[in-house]
């Protein structure tokens, strides 16, 4: 069965793994693949996770057990922000630009005063990165995203947090970066990005080629793990029968 695993499905499993061991916290996925991944984690190895409906409701629904719409809690924006600053949340954000230290930009491209391209704005990236565990999802690993220097630091990376002092580093916790090619983390002496695992059928060379800065990839770098048959069934039949994952990461 695993022979037919798509790249998107490896990404789903890699995203799910980001929340392993997190316990009773809110998983806050942004993007289709992370959303599917968080649901997968909750339905398998991380049942304690809390998930929202994308709006103000915490939905405890387990489709295996019945109604997926069951509301177990209420989380309007101001409560959500309190949950962020309390740290009981692990967010997986997108990134229009990301540098080797983990600085992320979603605000604008070019000079901030008059950007060449206005994007989302800073949103909650500063509060997220200083207060609760943060991971990133990059559906298209490319030199446009992985840059030497981001144009506007929204999510705070290790170097900038350190420079800002102990109040900035106290709860700063960057976990991993999942892309369509690999899983990366910051487990290096200077806490810059390295490849933790390559998705099956992806070469180290392809990842280096798609990254705008030198990247550490060990010769014996492992492969991103295979989904189990049970996980594949959940992804394909229960969580994402509409195949939103394949639209975000086309095969």
């Amino acid at each position: 069965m695993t022979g037919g695993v798509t790249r998107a499905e490896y990404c789903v499993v890699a995203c799910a793994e980001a929340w392993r061991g997190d316990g009773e916290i809110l998983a806050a996925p942004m993007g289709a693949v992370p959303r599917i991944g968080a649901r997968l984690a909750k339905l398998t190895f991380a049942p304690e996770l809390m998930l929202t409906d994308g709006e103000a409701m915490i939905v405890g629904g387990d489709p295996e057990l019945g109604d997926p719409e069951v509301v177990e809690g209420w989380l309007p924006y101001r409560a959500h922000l309190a949950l962020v600053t309390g740290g009981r949340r692990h967010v997986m954000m997108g990134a229009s630009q990301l540098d080797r230290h983990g600085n992320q930009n979603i605000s604008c491209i070019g000079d901030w005063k008059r950007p060449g391209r206005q994007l989302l704005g800073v949103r909650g990236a500063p509060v997220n990165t200083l207060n609760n565990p943060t991971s990133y999802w990059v559906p298209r690993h490319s030199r446009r995203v992985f840059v030497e220097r981001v144009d506007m630091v929204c999510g705070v990376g290790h170097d900038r947090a350190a420079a800002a002092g102990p109040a900035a580093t106290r709860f700063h916790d960057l976990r991993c970066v999942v892309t369509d090619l690999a899983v990366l983390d910051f487990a290096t002496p200077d806490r810059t990005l390295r490849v933790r695992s390559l998705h099956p059928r992806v070469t180290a060379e392809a990842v280096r080629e798609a990254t705008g800065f030198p990247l550490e990839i060990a010769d014996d770098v492992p492969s991103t793990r295979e989904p189990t048959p049970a996980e594949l069934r959940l992804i394909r039949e229960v969580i994402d029968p509409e195949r939103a994952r394949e639209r975000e990461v086309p095969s």
Partner: protein
Amino acid sequence: MTDKTMTAEQAVGRIHSGMTVGIGGWGSRRKPMALVRALLRSEVTDLTVVSFGGPDVGLLTAAGKVRKLVTAFATLDSIPLEPHFRAARERGDIELTELDESMMMWGLTAAVHRLPFLPARAGLGSDVMTVNPGLRTVTSPYEDGEELVAVPALRLDVALVHLNRADARGNGQYLGPDPYFDDLFCEAAAEAYVSCERVVATAEFADAGGPQTLLVKRHAVTGVVETPQGAHFTSCVPDYGRDEAFQSAYAKAAADPTAWREFTRRFLSGDEERYRAAVAAFGREGA
């Protein structure tokens, strides 16, 4: 008891050029669009707008009403980027105070509590500190000695919010899933104007929802405006959801100057009654 009901024109008539106006809702959700449309028809300009930005920001920006915007984003939710906001930024048309979402909340909260600032961790290390050189830090006087951002109070001259129900005295009730920050906007402002889907007798509130739905209190409200479909095309759950077809047409028109002139002529050149008629006609075309 004072009857605070008035027309959208009367409410907007209290806004003068150069004022700081806070607008409730979030993104493309429960925005006081009828009041914004009335503001579009006024002579007012040179505004500082404080908003969790959506099409309110887009429309006011496109009409040249905004000198400065204080926000963390401008989005249409189902369409990630607000097209007019994006164009205005790329043309360098507006000043921007770009704050983190939680800094917006703390700034409004500080204003409500009449404090000069509230400390927050958010912002440290990010370019929010760089692009807002006026932001300062404050050192905790306690043992921890932490150096935090002193998020300045966001005091407002006027707040505009839209709720599901209100009474003539200025009490406002929301019936959707999220209060957003509408109560903070009202209490942070010298004057607040609440538009609502329906003005009801005070005694009717209890039939619609529990006491926690009574979000806005009359002491903070100067005027009440009954504007059915007053949040259109943003959502006003449970009265109605977002008009996605219309929003999509808005975004498409915003991308092209000729199409935008036509959109303005068709939808934004008359009063609210004409707007509703034009929207109904748009709906009948079957999109």
